[in-house]
């Protein structure tokens, strides 16, 4: 992916750019809001990471300018402001996702990759398929190798989210936000317990495990490499 990074803190920018490049992405960096807006409009990007507080031009103002110009490139807003109000304001300005500082790099990477996927699958899907695991979104049934798997409603949504982001890393926070729809901070290994339950149903009787734990980051659903 070609990613534009607009961030004024050079150390944070270097850290992010290094990580993203190691993950196989092409990264360009702008240190001020005005440079960022110029770069954002002059070239095509697959995704942008924009810090909220920037010299020159505020991050939200850049996003608003881009959206007003019809630019639909997915944007991840980075900010030290983490209250629900702030998130809402960031998303209302046209951001696609919101990440609060300080963050783990794995979280940033997972979110930016999830963002690019969101755009490419705008078509309403009725069936999801990863290997021999199939999900019928209309009938709300899940089968694996032709064998029906009985899931609780929440387990169904958890698996659906994992399947929609098949092959990508999904973090615990992303799961909480998207499956449970609450912004909160569990102190315990809550999500892991839910995943291990799901894993019992999806992987237990099959040779090929699909749900994998990514150490220090989260989970991913894919055929083992």
């Amino acid at each position: 992916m070609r990613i534009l990074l607009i961030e004024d803190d050079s150390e944070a920018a270097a850290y992010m750019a290094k990580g993203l490049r190691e993950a196989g992405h092409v990264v360009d960096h702008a240190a001020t809001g005005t440079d960022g807006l110029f770069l954002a409009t002059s070239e095509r990007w697959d995704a942008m990471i924009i810090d909220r507080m920037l010299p020159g031009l505020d991050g939200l103002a850049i996003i608003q300018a881009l959206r007003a110009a019809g630019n639909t490139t997915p944007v991840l807003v980075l900010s030290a402001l983490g209250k629900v109000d702030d998130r809402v304001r960031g998303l209302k300005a046209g951001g696609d996702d919101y990440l609060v500082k300080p963050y783990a790099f794995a979280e940033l990477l997972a979110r930016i990759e999830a963002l690019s996927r969101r755009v490419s699958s705008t078509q309403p899907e009725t069936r999801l398929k990863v290997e021999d695991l199939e999900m019928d979104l209309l009938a709300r049934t899940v089968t694996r190798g032709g064998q029906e798997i009985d899931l609780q409603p929440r387990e169904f949504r958890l698996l659906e989210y994992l399947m929609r982001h098949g092959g990508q890393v999904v973090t615990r926070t992303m799961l909480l936000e998207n499956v449970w729809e609450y912004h909160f901070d569990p102190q315990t290994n809550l999500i892991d317990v839910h995943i291990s339950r799901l894993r019992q149903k999806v992987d237990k009787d099959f040779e090929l495990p699909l749900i994998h734990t990514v150490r220090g980051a989260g989970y991913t659903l894919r055929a083992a490499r």
Partner: protein
Amino acid sequence: MRPASLLRTTTFRLALSYLGIFTVSAIALLALVSWSTSMFIEWQVQETVEAEATGLSEVYHSRELGGLAEIIGSRMRQDVEGRNTYLLMGHSGHILAGNIKSWPAEVSSQVGWVRFRLLQLGSVGPGVEVLAQVYELADGYRLLVGRSLADAKRVKSAINRALGWGLALTILLGVVGGYFTSRHLLQRVEEMSRTARRIFGGDMSQRMQLSGTDDEFDSLADSFNEMMDELERLLEGIRTVSDNIAHDLRTPLNRLRSRIDLVLLGAPDCEGYRRTLEETLADADHLLATFNAILTISHAEAAARLDRFEVIDPATLAGDVAELYEPLAEEKGLQLHCRADGGLTLKVDRHLLFQALANLVDNAVKYTPAGGEVSVTVEGGPSSVAVSVADSGPGIPEESREAVLERFVRLDATRSTPGNGLGLSLVQAVARLHSARLSLEDNQPGLVVRLEFPVTDRQA
């Protein structure tokens, strides 16, 4: 109090301007009274003169000039105080009867109502004013019947004097009253600003005095005191946080530092570095989680904008929390139930309330031994909705229940379990944000934490 400062106060200026308006209207009123009184008195004199003149004219008609002169003579004798004036005079100037020596010069040729000054015997002053009626009789005779206005003048001036004194007294009372009223008000305002000065001088325990009369100053003082209580609580909270940050965060930060220090002291060892970095990352994450918890609490305590509140069904929220924790409870060998009354609504910050309930269930699951039971209950009362989390664990001794709500407080028995001691403080902050009552009770055995939300705007 210096009088100069009193004169500058709003109350005193207000009192003065009221006094001014009042004085002007009092003067107008008194002038009217004085004028109408004098009119009335003169009218009375006029009546008397007219009655006298009518009587005399009747005598003149029946008994001619001689009889008239005779009657005048007898009337004069009756009038010992000399209030009346009579004069019957011929055309050549000779006097037939009367108690004045000559026709007054000022009214020599007038007929009808006249007014003149009469010099009394032996007096040097301007004399007495007389109101009189003059008649032309036959053969050039003229009759003057009058009455002295001296009495009327005396009454008038007595009334005017009384009115004047009344006015002076009114103004005096107004000034004195205004002075004392404004001094009284000023004293209370002064007292309040003295208290305020003492407070920002650093004595946070100062409070406004109430006079006990339940007046507007008392209600102002009351609101101020309430504000001060809240402020003091918040400041105390900040102080406790900084103390506790110093205490609770310094330890892990120091551990982090010495871990890095130690590994740098040793021989370069790639695997060792890696392990240390991983441990350091875990420490940093724990520190961040603690900071996040502190920030969430501050956010709740700062009473964030209430327009972010949304109407929710507490049963759904409680169900979501229970569902989220159900696998964890099961893993620990606990029963987790959710019993919720349907059809209720609450206006809350959904995310914060979820976090608060999650903290409670988290605690309950953490401290209840295997085989125990945890239940989340939502009950709708007539005026409140109670959300409670109960467990069958060891509970909290009554004397420690207050203490566990403080930030970073962890009972000695739980020091070794993971957590930062912020869970219940967050619950309390969330309760306060929603004006909910938080109570910790004995579940016999175990603990019940109950959040009681007042329902005032169920339709909202």
